[in-house]
């Protein structure tokens, strides 16, 4: 990374894949959830994973960051096995375990985003404070810095978790449903932030239900339904046919896509807000 936080791609590796999966099987213990995944994420690009809950999105993301072992095939992240590069990868999980007994302020949560870069010992400096504050401003929560996390609304907490990821200034962002719980304003800020990250040179892999906006701004989209239904550019992949295979029922009208989940899903979050 250079002094402005822009990612410097080592010469000769420009265009080298950030994530590369060949015949990858993922799952838990010995149960394969999705088999034979093949894709590549090039540096500086974004890919969205779309599918119902239980389709394998979260499993794939966890395997990429090294929380779950792969069950077959090959997976490399920045050319190394998953879990090798803590400093370069930021992860936002779907559920948060803290239980809210933990006394912690919003600013402390965002600050944790810098920890992977400093480990146990190294001291953080003024620049880190600026980055932390900038991340909070990006998500519109700078006034809540001193507030205890447990006193914030669901939407504000989610903004805080996103800010934490932004504060890392990682090379690769691995995000699982980052917009769940965000209100319209929060979603706007998030999308702007994602654009900025891409402009900075970061790569993004994001599991999302937001087909309208988020998936649309990615370079690639992967549809998952316990198998890879389709993978490619958004306009090619997000067809009614492919969505039918993924979700079960699709009702379209007026260029709007309204997606209803059926028994395929395990009762996931509500369908995305379709305003406009």
């Amino acid at each position, binding site marked *: 990374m250079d002094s402005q936080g822009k990612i410097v791609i080592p010469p000769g590796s420009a265009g080298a894949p950030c994530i590369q999966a060949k015949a990858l099987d993922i799952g838990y213990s010995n149960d394969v959830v999705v088999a034979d995944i093949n894709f590549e994420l090039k540096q500086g690009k974004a890919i969205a994973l779309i599918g119902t809950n239980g389709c394998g999105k979260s499993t794939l993301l966890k395997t990429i960051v090294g929380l779950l072992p792969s069950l077959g095939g090959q997976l490399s992240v920045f050319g190394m096995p998953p879990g090798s590069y803590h400093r370069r990868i930021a992860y936002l999980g779907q559920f*948060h375990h803290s*239980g809210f*007994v*933990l006394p912690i*302020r919003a600013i402390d949560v965002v600050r944790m985003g810098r920890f992977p870069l400093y480990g146990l010992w190294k001291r953080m400096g003024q620049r880190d404070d600026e980055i932390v504050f900038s991340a909070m401003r990006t998500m519109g929560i700078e006034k809540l810095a*001193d507030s205890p996390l447990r006193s*914030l609304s669901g939407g504000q907490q989610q903004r805080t978790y996103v800010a934490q990821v932004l504060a890392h200034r990682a090379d690769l962002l691995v995000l699982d449903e980052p917009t769940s719980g965000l209100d319209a304003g929060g979603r706007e800020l998030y999308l702007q932030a994602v654009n900025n990250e891409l402009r900075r040179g970061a790569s993004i892999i994001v599991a999302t239900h937001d087909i309208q906006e988020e998936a649309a701004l990615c370079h690639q989209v992967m549809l998952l339904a316990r198998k890879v239904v389709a993978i490619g550019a958004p306009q090619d992949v997000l067809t009614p046919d492919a969505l039918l295979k993924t979700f079960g029922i699709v009702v379209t009208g007026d260029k709007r896509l309204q997606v209803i989940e059926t028994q395929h899903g395990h009762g996931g979050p509500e369908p995305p807000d379709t305003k406009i």
Partner: protein
Amino acid sequence: MDLFITPFSSNGFMLQAFIAGILVSIACAIAGTFVILRGLAFIGDALAHGVLPGIAVAILVGFPGIIGAAIGASFMIGGITLITQRSRLSSDTAIGLLFIGMLSLGVVIVSRSNSFSGDLTRILFGEILGISIQSILIQFVATFVIVAIAIICRRPFLMLSFDPEQAEVAGFSVRLYHNIMLFMIAITVIVSFQTVGTLLVFGLLIAPAGAGALLSRRIEAMMAWAIFFGVLSMYSGLLISYHFNLAAGATIILVTVVIFFITFIIQNIRHHRPVHPRELTHG
């Protein structure tokens, strides 16, 4: 003034008890903070009871109780680690059985001694009034170690308490730091049981830190409150037990629990209506 200071100033053993109490309060505040934040209450309780056979053997054979407690604690931790690794489903039951087994084993061992009831009472309820200088020195070292660990590992501990998955991805091995936390708790139980006994030391771990959790926005503040409440309990408990001829260890624990509930009640009165989250964003 006479009521509050003289019992300590004119009695060496009271002052020694108080000093031991301060050290124990610091250790328990730090370990107790993580017991609460990481939901380790059950394991903490199991450890406190599981050290009994070790202590019993130590008394019977004649070496210091602390060493016996250390052996017992290692056994318990080994057992707990094995159990939690094998089965996620029934680890509560298995751990419960393990510590009940250790507790019974301890009683059986103590029953071989000539001063069974007395020994058992002293192990279960402590003998803070008879703390020796050597014990205090050991407590000092242990407390120092615990403070050092808490400072060195503050970042991984914070992340672990916030979200273990995040911690793992950030490069802090959950397994390693979780075990360090268990180790910290074990050391705390090992050096603290002489003051308030193995039955009640768990209270000293939880009550001051619990009260601290209610009052704090930050983890450092929580620990600071926990230390303060612990020391306050030691002082008041010793003072009250002196003036009223009560069992010192149990009185101290009673005070910690009272402090917790006072804090709890006051907090709830102040927030007499639940604050709606929306009110925080608008205005």
